[in-house]
């Protein structure tokens, strides 16, 4: 298997996220195997791969939930192990499995996470109104979270990740279980974030989503980064119709089965 060592961006002020030989093992299983990657400020980076490829493990390392076994990662110049508390201030995580307090309303869940990030109360109210409009959950924001559908929870989880206006957002499959209209509203929102120069790592199983939103994508398989580049460049490189074809070609797996 060809392994790409991505070196498009050297460690400069433009680098928001840096991975150097990032490795994570669980016993005999190597979930992430020597990732090298630089992601610049303001970039939306799509992280693609089959189930179990190591996408979520990578996100968990970047969000300080897991320590790497080898190598290191930095976010906004802070080592994720040595300066975990600094990293937590600058990231917003929308986890693959949304975690929320079911007995709180959507607004209260978001408020809580804003308060945990020390967002001033007045600003918090304004941001909640604004973000709820953007992801189309405004009418339901005062309902108990236990009454939400899966798609609503995803949207609330996205706002929880971004309520403190972090410069780096880690969105782990943010549009799973959403209807097409809601998904589109989240896409528009993510595009808007790019215009605000935010750095986003977006993991997704939807190739259309990755192609639409990402400045670059990286394809991970069995813990290794096997392809990286702008979606159109990869499509051109392999002379195929779309990113899904690139994915299937490079991973050798049928995407629809994965999804």
């Amino acid at each position, binding site marked *: 298997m060809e392994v790409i060592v991505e070196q498009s961006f050297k460690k400069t002020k433009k680098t928001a996220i840096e991975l150097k030989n990032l490795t994570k093992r669980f016993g005999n299983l190597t979930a992430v195997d020597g990732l090298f990657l630089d992601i610049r400020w303001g970039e939306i980076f799509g992280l693609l791969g089959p189930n179990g490829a190591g996408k979520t493990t990578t996100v968990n390392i970047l969000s300080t939930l897991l320590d790497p076994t080898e190598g290191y990662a930095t976010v906004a110049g802070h080592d994720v192990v040595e300066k975990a508390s600094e990293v937590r201030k600058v990231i917003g995580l929308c*986890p693959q499995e949304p*975690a929320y*307090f079911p*007995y*709180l309303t959507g607004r209260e869940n978001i408020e809580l996470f804003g308060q945990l990030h020390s967002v001033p109360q007045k600003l918090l109210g304004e941001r909640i109104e604004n973000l709820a409009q953007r992801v189309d959950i405004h009418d339901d924001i005062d309902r*108990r979270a236990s009454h939400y559908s899966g798609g609503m929870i995803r949207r609330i989880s996205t706002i929880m990740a971004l309520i403190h206006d972090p410069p780096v957002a880690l969105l782990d499959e943010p549009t799973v279980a959403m209807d097409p209209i809601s998904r589109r509203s989240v896409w528009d929102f993510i595009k808007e974030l790019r215009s605000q120069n935010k750095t986003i790592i977006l993991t997704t199983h939807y190739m259309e989503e990755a192609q639409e939103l990402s400045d670059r994508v990286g394809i991970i398989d069995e813990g290794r980064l096997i392809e990286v580049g702008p979606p159109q460049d990869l499509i051109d490189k392999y002379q195929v119709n779309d990113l899904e074809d690139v994915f299937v070609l490079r991973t050798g797996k049928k995407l629809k089965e994965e999804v």
Partner: protein
Amino acid sequence: MDFKRVLALVKKNMKKFTRDPGTLFLLVLFPVVLTTVFGFAFGGIGESGPQSFEIGVVNTDYSSDHPEWASGFFTNLSDIEGVILVEYADNETGQADLLQGSIDALIVIPTGFGDSCQSYWEFPFDGTSWINTSISLYLDSGSLVATAAVPPIVQQVFLRTLFGDAKISLDVPVQLTSPQLISASSVSQWDFMVPGMFAFSAIFITVIVAQSMTVERNEGLLRRMSTTPVTSSDYMLSQTLSYMTVAIIQVAMIFLTSYLIGYRPATGLIGIGFALTILAVFSLSCVGLGLIAATFTNSADGATGLAFMVAMPQMFLGTFMPLGGIADTIASIMPSTYVTDALTTLFLRGALVTTPSIWIDLVLVVAASIIVVIAGILVFDRWGRGM
């Protein structure tokens, strides 16, 4: 540590307590229901009159030259409101009835009782000339009220017999040991149980903490929060403050419920304040035990079971009443024992807040709570967060 974050988490917990029916029931309604049920079961409801005791008496002072002292003693005893006198011809018959629970206590007037009383009045200031005797007193160990109330009654009656209504506390030739100084005329079993009720309800916090922490861990909420600037100490302090607040609310509700159904503690506002303090401190140890239970279980059900195993010994060994023997030895290492002891001293015996024994109880509860809560935080932070 950031107190705004801590406050935000405390507010979150308070919303959980009020919105989650299961938690609300266990934390607030259950203690109130339990208090009411115990109040009915043990005679507190609407009871304002004195407790009634059936006391057996055996007079073995047959050959005395002064039988009027024994008969005077019986007369004074029967004059006590709520005392029903049952006379026995011999000790054996009285003992048999006591064993069967037909009477609450048995008093045996010794041979020479009259002579003994008479010797006092002949030589009131010369103890060497007295004829010393002892009144034998047998109590039904299953009757909490009799155990505590009858000895002072007998003491009081004897002194009235010897001195009339004058209040005297001189040495006398007839001895009876009084184990507790309580106001016997208004004491019921319910009065004995109320101090234990407060500790009993606080112990349930162990179960709630274990359940709550397990659920938050299993649903990924602890992991999710650990990607924010919240520190472990922020989170643990918020949990501790939340459950201390609940403990204080529980105490207030149990107190109110007890009061409404007739309970009147023999202490004032300062005593109640002391009770709130020691219970709030005690709740810390319950939080610590809950954290330990949550650490070593994978599910809410498992946490509940383990928490009950941890809480049960506290609930039933020393919380309500001394059980004697090895149970008392085990109870002596449990903070709930000292909470109940302090509350009993205040609420039942009417001791002042300056009484040294309750401060010793408080110090012991503080020490135990600090140890348990620190152990709980360390253990949970190290192994229980599921990170």
